[in-house]
């Protein structure tokens, strides 16, 4: 099930609200149980067979957490930690990467291997990382042990962030799982956030996705530079609004149930360096790799060569986390190299040039990266990128059609990439007229959210095109 679906919006959501809020707030355990059951039902909708893998993951993480917490000896704690890591990574490795490795092994040695295709459970990349985050935090004493298995299950399977993040750290919600208050203001804020996310997905991501899909489906060798850029930019907008929209919906839904998830996107397309971009894009993933891979490897408190290696390892893994294809790994390595170059050379230059140039520099590099990410293989990606930088005088009919058809959405995408509402709020706060200040802070955003949500529902009902990209992670 996805959030941007009729069934979720008009059946699942009212049902979970009804069942959850029917129970008085003081019965926290019961409310958590209801939320857990609905979360499991949400997952079961899409994975009736492989829900067992998620349940196994929950069980392993719960047992490991308890074992680590009650072990007195450090060596034993470490053993249980290793156990949890091996199982979690093992599950992820098998379901996500087995076929990839088998095919590449066969290709490398020129042999034929007949293996049954392993089906990737929805959301496995997210829930295994969440589970690992819990166990590691317990091991490090960064989070208290959770003795109630229902609460661990709830933390890992909570439907707002289950299939597409953000990757919620256990210590972010540890307290709120046991003690939280669902307030009207949080609920209202959650609704607004959900509406914005829903609208991003339906109005912007889906439209840009249709453009990107059409262009990427063309024979790459026959691409003209105009279409190549339009395709790359469209995909960039698609993935941004799809993923950030989903994160908004997750954060909004979390708020409605009293959870305060951390932000996952912070207007990454206004970045003036790749370094800055990765502080603003998929923040939960970046910080996860920083805290659980980069820092344990030594981070930047090592020799320069080791530092470079650490960055390289983290970014290779980051790319690989996104999918079992060489393109994802290449994408990760691409960013690893750029980050290394920025750290040691380029940032100094960027800090001394007008911001507009550093912004253009960043946009070009990031846009090119999405071509690698989107392409089926490395050679297609390289050909595509070469087309982007091979300028001839022609503008193709297809470009004219796609651009004229979607020019308004393209403009809206640009506007939505900029923190305009934040700017308006900051200006409104400086107003001396209190009534006007209150009005501007309260109403326009809410009304706008309601309007675009209503339009989004029209698009939902009319849609025949409603894929969700991060479903395969």
């Amino acid at each position, binding site marked *: 099930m996805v959030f941007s679906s*009729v*069934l979720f919006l008009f059946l699942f959501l009212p049902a979970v609200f009804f069942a959850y809020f029917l129970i008085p707030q003081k019965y926290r355990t019961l409310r958590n149980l209801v939320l857990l059951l609905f979360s499991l039902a949400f997952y079961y*909708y899409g994975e*009736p067979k492989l829900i067992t893998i998620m349940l196994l993951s929950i069980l392993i993480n719960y047992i490991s957490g308890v074992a680590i917490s009650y072990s007195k000896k450090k060596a034993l704690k470490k053993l249980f930690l290793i156990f949890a890591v091996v199982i979690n990574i093992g599950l992820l490795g098998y379901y996500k990467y087995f076929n990839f490795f088998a095919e590449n092994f066969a290709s490398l040695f020129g042999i034929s291997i007949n293996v049954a295709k392993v089906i990737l459970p929805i959301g496995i990349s997210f829930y295994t990382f969440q589970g690992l985050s819990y166990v590691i935090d317990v091991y490090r004493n960064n989070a208290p042990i959770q003795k109630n298995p229902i609460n661990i299950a709830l933390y890992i399977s909570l439907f707002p962030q289950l299939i597409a993040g953000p990757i919620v750290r256990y210590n972010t919600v540890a307290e709120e799982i046991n003690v939280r208050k669902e307030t009207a203001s949080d609920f209202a804020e959650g609704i607004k956030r959900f509406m914005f996310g829903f609208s991003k997905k339906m109005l912007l991501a889906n439209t840009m996705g249709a453009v990107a899909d059409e262009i990427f489906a063309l024979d790459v060798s026959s691409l003209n530079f105009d279409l190549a850029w339009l395709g790359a930019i469209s995909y960039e907008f698609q993935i941004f609004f799809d993923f950030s929209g989903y994160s908004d919906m997750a954060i909004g839904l979390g708020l409605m149930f009293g959870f305060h998830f951390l932000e996952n996107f912070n207007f990454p397309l206004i970045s003036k360096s790749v370094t800055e971009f990765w502080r603003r894009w998929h923040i939960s993933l970046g910080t996860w790799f920083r805290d659980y891979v980069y820092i344990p490897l030594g981070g930047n408190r090592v020799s320069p060569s080791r530092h470079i290696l650490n960055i390289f390892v983290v970014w290779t893994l980051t790319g690989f986390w996104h999918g079992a294809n060489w393109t994802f790994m290449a994408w990760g390595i691409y960013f690893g190299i750029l980050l290394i170059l920025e750290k040691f050379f380029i940032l100094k230059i960027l800090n001394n040039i007008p911001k507009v140039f550093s912004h253009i520099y960043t946009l070009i590099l990031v846009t090119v990266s999405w071509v690698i990410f989107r392409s089926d293989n490395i050679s297609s990606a390289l050909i595509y990128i070469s087309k982007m930088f091979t300028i001839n005088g022609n503008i193709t009919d297809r470009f004219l059609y796609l651009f004229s058809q979607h020019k308004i959405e393209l403009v809206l995408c640009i506007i939505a990439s900029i923190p305009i509402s934040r700017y308006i709020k900051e200006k409104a706060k400086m107003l001396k007229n209190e009534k006007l200040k209150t009005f501007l802070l309260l109403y326009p955003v809410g009304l706008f959210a309601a309007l675009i949500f209503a339009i989004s529902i029209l698009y939902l*009902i*009319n849609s025949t095109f409603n894929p969700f990209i991060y479903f395969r992670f």
Partner: protein
Amino acid sequence: MIIGFLLVIFLVPIITKIIPPKDTSHFENRALKTPPVFSTSALLEGKYLPEWEEYFSDHIALRDEMIYAYTYLNANILKKTVVNNIVITKNALLPFNSLSDVNEKQIQDDAIRMAEKISKLNDFITSNGGVFCFIGIPEQSSMLRNEYPIFLENADKKLTVTENAFFSALSDKGIKHINMMDTFKNDDYFKYYSVTDHHYNIHGAFKTYERIIDELELDNALQKSDFNYYEYPNNFYGSRARIIYKAYNMPDKLGIYTPKKEIEFTRIDSGTQVNWLFYQPQNEKEDITYNVYMGWDSAETYVYTKRPELPRILIFGDSFTNPLETILYTASDTMLSVDLRHNKKSIYEYIEEFKPDIVLLVRDDTCYTSFDGNGSF
């Protein structure tokens, strides 16, 4: 904000449950989903629950109204060129053609194969004492292909290659044929076509009738001066307008030709008597469709006029025959209209039984080399 949001998400499913479900969508021209049937295997394979998504989407309250609003927004406010795969031009609604390569060799081969099929049919008709004529009529988007914006595919190459190959193949086989493109393009062709439907209009049908009686030398057939023309005051929404939920204002009208001197007829559609040739709307406010002409596509329609001095005419083809039939019957003793898409009998069986003097095959130019439907004789 809270109340509004909760009202929407709670009321929609409640209202959906209360209102009786529809079987079909008039606008989408398809059957709507039925409730999925439960089975353990379907549940475990993850098919059962998603089917409820499809069912609920099809039957959600105010579905048509929401799709109308979406279409209106895109057509009139966002002013998109293409909405629901309909190209909105200044003068007509046209279908969106995806870009594709034209396989000229394939078209040539198909044209020859089709001409061979028609030749075989022609021989059979001739051996049964009849005369055959193929009538080719440009489909609306073909005739109005110059209305497409310059950057959109108007299928010109494919249509031109097909037209040339097909009629050349017919000529090679010595088959009598009429290509209405030749007539329309040398005239003010807009007046012969609907701007919101994929068909020609009654003037196009009448022009076709005139070509037929001229080609087949039907000297006793009525001329234009023998007919009255009447235009319905009702709004006409063609097939393309329906796809965009009538959300874009492009006025279109429907007319009919009736003989000044009434010709008595008996009409039998697949064994059922029907007393009219034109559907009459209840009042001026009722929107009308192409179904005004003969009402519907029927497997077989007999129109008896009891004038044995006139020929027996068998006409078969798609819905392009419908307005033509409302005029052509005047030139026949008995007119039999057959639509093979809805038929189990073959055209050969009809010819053997009916023994027509004239057999007309009417196809639009997007189907000249199609072996489906009325090309499957």
